[in-house]
C-alpha cells in the first residue's frame, strides 16, 4: 500500500501570461492519451477559454493523467492549474501547496519576465521542485541558450536540463513528462494514518451540493467516512469521490498523495473554505495543514439596480453567485441617491469586476456600482472601535478619536530600468519604502508599504504602464495605521449624493475634489436643467463645476409624415437613459459613480 503513492506526481505549470501554459497543458493531456487531439481542442481548452472569458479563472483546474514512463512503470500525474491574479494570491498559494513540483515555462523569444519571477518565488516558497522548460523554440527568434543563461542568472535555477520545447509543434513533451516523473518527488504520507486533506477549491453544484477539490496528505478518503472540517468542526459523511481525467469520474478512494473531489452533503460553500483541512471525525489529526486563512473581502462597493423593480432579481443573483464564491459577501444597503441595493465585498478590484460582469451578463441586470472603498477603522470618542466600509456611514468628525486605514506590504518585481518610475509611483501613493534588492543586473525587487486605498485606486494598471508591462505586484495586508483622512462629499445641485462620497487623505482632498468635479462634468451629459457639481469637506465647498443647460433641443417641424420618426428618436433617447440614475432632476450615467475612482493623477 505504501507503494501506491510512489507512482503519483502532483505538479502545476507556472508561466508568464502568453508564454504558452494552456497549449502546453493540452499537449501533455494529448501525449498521455488523456484526451484525443480533437478533444483537446474541442473540449478541454475550450472549456478553459470559456471559463477564462467568463472571468472564473478563480477556479482551480485539475486533471489526472496516466503515463507509462521510459522506466516501464505506470504513473499517475496530477496537473493542478492555478488562477493567475494578485486578487487570488491566497487561492494560488493553496493550489501550490497541493503540489510537489512545478513546470516553469519560459518563452524562448521573451526570456524571464516579471510574472515568471513572482510565480517562481511563490513555487519556491512551497519547496516545489522546479522543472524549467524553454518554450516556443520553433520561432525564428528563439534564443534557447540565452534564455537558459537568464534562468540561471536571474532566477538562480540550474537550467542545464531545461527542456527545449515547442508546445505548438509538440516538441519536448515526452521529456517534460519524464522529468516530472524523475525529478518531482512522490508524495509522502501514510495511507493508513489519520486523515489530513487540504481543500484548495470548492464550488456549488446544483445536483451534488458543495464539491470540494482536495489534496490528501495523510490517510485515505472513502465513501461513508465521517469527516470533519477543521476550522468550524462541522461533521459530514463522504458520499462520493472523483477525479478529473479530464472529465469527472467516480473513484472508490483517494489515498495520501492523491488529488480529487469530495462530495459530502455540504450545503453551504462557506463551510468548505479554501485552505481548510479535512480530517476524520473519530480520529482527527492534532494539527491542521498550515497556512489556513479565512479570506476576507478587502474592497467594498455598493451595487444598485438602475431600475428599482430589479431589486429582487439582483438579490437572487447575488445569492446564486455566493454559492460558488465564498470570498464574495453582500448585505443590504440603502442609499438616499440610489435607493435599495447591496454592499458587496470583494478580494480586490479584478474580483469586483468579475462579479459585476457576471451580474450584468449572466443575470441580465443593469447596475450602478459605487466607487470601491476599503475598510477603515474608527475609534470614537467613547473608545469604541467601528469598521467602516461605506463612506456614507462615517460618524461625524467630532466623534472620531482615531482614524485608521489598512496598509499593505507590496512586493514589486521589475526591471532595473524602471526603478525610478516605480519608486515615484509608490511615493505618489503615500508609500513607505522598506526594501530594494537587485537580483542580477537586470532585476529588482522593491518592497513598499502602501495604504490599500491607494492600491485599489488603479495602482496595478499604473504599475503596468510605468513598467511597460514588466513589473509584477504581490501583496499582503500589513495592518492598520493612523492617517489624516477626511470624507469628500459630492453635491449635485446642492444635494449631497451619498453614493459619490469617498474617504481620502486630507492632503489629496483638494486635488481629488477638483478632479472628481471635472470628471463628473465630462461624464454627466448636458440636460435641460443646469447642473451644479460641488465637492465639499464637511460644510466647506472646495470645488465647483457647472454643466450648462441645453440652449436648444427642439424639432422645427412635426407634421403627419414626421411623427413616427420623431417619436422613435425620442423613445430611443429615453431607452439610452435607462442606464442613468435620476438624482433630483439630474440624470447621472452609471459611469459617473465610478468617476470618483477613475480620475487621473
Amino acid at each position: 500500500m505504501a507503494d501506491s503513492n510512489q507512482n503519483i506526481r502532483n505538479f502545476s505549470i507556472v508561466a508568464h501570461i502568453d508564454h504558452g501554459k494552456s497549449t502546453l497543458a493540452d499537449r501533455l493531456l494529448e501525449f498521455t492519451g488523456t484526451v484525443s487531439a480533437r478533444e483537446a481542442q474541442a473540449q478541454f481548452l475550450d472549456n478553459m477559454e470559456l471559463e477564462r472569458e467568463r472571468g472564473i479563472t478563480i477556479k482551480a483546474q485539475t486533471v489526472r493523467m496516466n503515463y507509462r514512463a521510459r522506466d516501464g512503470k505506470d504513473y499517475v500525474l496530477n496537473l493542478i492549474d492555478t488562477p493567475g491574479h494578485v486578487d487570488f494570491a491566497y487561492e494560488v498559494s493553496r493550489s501550490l501547496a497541493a503540489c510537489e513540483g512545478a513546470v516553469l515555462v519560459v518563452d524562448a523569444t521573451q526570456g524571464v519576465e516579471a510574472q515568471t519571477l513572482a510565480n517562481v518565488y511563490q513555487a519556491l516558497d512551497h519547496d516545489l521542485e522546479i522543472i524549467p522548460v524553454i518554450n516556443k523554440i520553433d520561432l525564428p527568434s528563439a534564443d534557447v541558450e540565452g534564455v537558459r543563461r537568464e534562468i540561471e542568472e536571474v532566477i538562480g535555477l540550474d537550467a542545464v536540463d531545461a527542456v527545449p520545447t515547442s508546445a505548438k509543434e509538440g516538441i519536448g513533451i515526452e521529456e517534460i513528462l519524464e522529468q516530472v516523473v524523475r525529478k518531482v518527488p512522490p508524495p509522502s504520507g501514510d495511507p493508513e494514518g489519520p486523515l489530513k486533506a487540504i481543500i484548495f477549491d470548492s464550488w456549488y453544484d446544483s445536483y451534488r451540493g458543495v464539491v470540494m477539490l482536495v489534496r490528501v496528505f495523510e490517510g485515505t478518503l472513502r465513501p461513508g467516512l465521517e469527516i470533519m472540517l477543521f476550522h468550524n468542526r462541522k461533521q459530514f459523511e463522504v458520499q462520493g469521490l472523483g477525479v478529473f481525467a479530464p472529465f469527472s469520474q467516480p473513484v472508490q478512494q483517494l489515498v495520501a498523495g492523491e488529488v480529487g473531489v469530495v462530495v459530502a452533503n455540504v450545503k453551504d460553500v462557506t463551510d468548505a473554505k479554501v485552505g481548510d483541512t479535512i480530517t476524520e471525525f473519530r480520529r482527527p489529526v492534532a494539527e491542521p495543514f498550515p497556512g489556513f486563512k479565512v479570506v476576507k473581502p478587502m474592497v467594498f462597493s455598493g451595487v444598485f439596480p438602475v431600475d428599482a423593480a430589479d431589486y429582487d432579481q439582483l438579490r437572487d443573483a447575488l445569492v446564486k453567485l455566493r454559492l460558488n464564491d465564498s470570498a464574495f459577501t453582500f448585505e443590504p444597503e440603502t442609499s438616499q441617491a440610489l435607493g435599495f441595493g447591496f454592499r458587496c465585498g470583494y478580494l480586490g478590484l479584478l474580483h469586483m469586476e468579475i462579479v459585476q460582469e457576471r451580474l450584468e451578463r449572466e443575470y441580465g441586470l443593469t447596475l450602478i456600482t459605487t466607487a470601491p472603498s476599503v475598510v477603515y477603522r474608527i475609534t470614537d470618542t467613547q473608545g469604541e472601535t467601528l469598521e467602516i466600509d461605506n463612506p456614507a456611514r462615517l460618524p461625524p468628525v467630532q466623534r472620531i478619536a482615531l482614524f485608521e486605514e489598512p496598509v499593505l506590504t507590496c512586493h514589486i518585481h521589475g526591471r532595473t530600468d524602471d526603478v525610478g518610475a516605480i519608486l515615484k509611483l509608490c511615493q505618489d501613493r503615500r508609500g513607505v519604502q522598506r526594501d530594494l534588492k537587485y537580483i542580477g543586473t537586470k532585476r529588482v525587487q522593491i518592497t513598499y508599504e502602501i495604504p490599500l486605498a491607494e492600491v485599489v485606486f488603479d495602482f496595478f494598471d499604473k504599475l503596468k504602464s510605468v513598467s511597460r508591462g514588466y513589473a509584477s505586484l504581490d501583496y499582503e495586508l500589513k495592518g492598520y495605521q493612523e492617517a489624516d483622512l477626511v470624507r469628500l462629499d459630492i453635491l449635485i445641485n446642492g444635494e449631497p449624493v451619498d453614493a459619490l462620497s469617498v474617504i481620502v487623505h486630507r492632503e489629496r482632498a483638494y486635488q481629488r475634489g477638483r478632479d472628481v468635479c471635472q470628471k463628473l462634468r465630462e461624464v454627466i451629459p448636458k440636460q435641460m436643467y443646469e447642473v451644479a457639481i460641488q465637492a465639499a469637506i464637511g460644510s466647506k465647498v472646495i470645488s465647483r463645476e457647472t454643466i450648462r443647460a441645453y440652449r436648444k433641443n427642439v424639432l422645427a417641424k412635426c407634421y403627419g409624415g414626421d411623427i413616427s420618426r420623431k417619436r422613435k428618436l425620442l423613445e430611443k433617447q429615453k431607452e439610452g437613459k435607462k442606464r442613468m440614475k435620476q438624482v433630483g432632476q439630474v440624470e447621472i450615467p452609471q459611469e459617473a459613480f465610478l468617476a470618483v475612482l477613475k480620475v487621473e493623477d
Partner: protein
Amino acid sequence: MPPRPFGLYVHFPWCSFRCPYCDFAVTTSRPMPGERYADAVIAEIRLRAHAFRGRTCATLFLGGGTPSLWEPAAIARVVEEARALGLPGGAEVTLEANPESCDADRARAWRDAGVNRVSIGVQSFDGAVLRKLGRRHGPGDAERAVREVASVVGNVSVDLMYGGRRSSVETARADAERLVSLPVTHVSSYALTLDAEVLAEEVPFARLARSGKLAFPGDDEVVSQGRAIAAVLEGAGLRRYEISNFARPGLESRHNLLYWRSDDYLGAGAGAVGCVRTEEGGGRWTNHRSVGPWLAALDAGELPTASEERLGPSELANERIMLSLRTAEGLDVAWLGPDRHGEVAALVRAGLGEIRAGRLRLTLEGMDLHSAVAERLFGSGGG
C-alpha cells in the same frame, strides 16, 4: 360622441429643383405627368377611404414638393374627391406654393379649383440668406408673390427659415418685420435643421456641415434668431399657437392642428403618410417614396404602402405627449402617469412650463427644449 373627423393630405413630389436642406419626398425628373398622377392619387384615396368610413373629411392639404406646379384642373379633381369624402364647402383647403409659381392668374385658377389658403415658401427677404439657402427667388419675387396671391385668395401663410448661413438676429428680425407689413394671416418659422438623426434622409447641407465644409450658426445664435422672429410676429398680433407656427386668431391651420391633436389623416401620393386609430390602437402607413413604385402599385390596383407601423397604447401616449406639448393648448396633465408628476413640478419650478386649467404648456424657454421635455415625460415602459 360623433366620430372624429380626419384630414386629407395629398403629396405632390415634383419640384423645379431640389433645395439642399430639404428631406421631403421630392423629385425633379421630367416630364411631370400631372393628370396621370391625379388619376392615381384619386385611385389611392378611394382605396384608402373605407378605413375612414362613417367619418367626415374636415381639411385638405396639398403639400410637396411644389404642388403649385400642378395643373389647376388636376387640383380641382382632387378637391372634388375630397368633397366626396364629406369636405364641407367652407373647409380649409391649403396649397403649398413657391414664390416663382405664384401670380394673380394662377391664384385665380387655384381659387376656382377650390383652394382657399396658400402657403408660400418665402424663407427670407434677405438676398444673401436666400442664395445661401440655395433658393432661386429673390426678395422682390417673394413680396410680389405674397401680395398677388393674397389679393385673390385672401388667406396666405408664409414659411420663414432662420439659422442658415449669412443669417443673423438682424436678418431674422428684418424678415419678420417685412413679413408683418404684408397681408399674411399665418407664419411658419423654422430653424434650419441639419441634425442627421432628425432628418428623413440625408441632405447635402447636413453632409457639408458634418464634414466641416460649411459652417452654420450655433445653437445660441439660432435660438436668438427664433426669439427675435417670434417677438416681432407676436407684437404684430400673430399668436404663437405651436412651436413653429403663428397665426391671426381664428386663422390657425386646421389641418396641422389635427396632427398635433392626435387626430387621423389620410395621406395619398408618393411618400405620403397616413394614420388611423381605433379603439384597440392604431396604425400608420408610409407610401413608396418614389413615384415609379407608387404608381406601379396603384396601376395594379394595390395600395402603394411601403411600410406600416402598429401603434400600441404606449406609442399613442408618447405621441400625444410629444405633439400636444408643441401647441399653446398644451398637454392635459391627467394623461400622464402619476410617476411623471414630479417631472411636471420640476418643469414648472425651472420656468420651462406652466399649468393652466389642468394643462401643461411650455413657456418660451420650454419650447426651445421641447424634445428633452417630451422625452422626460414619456412613459418609461415605452419603446
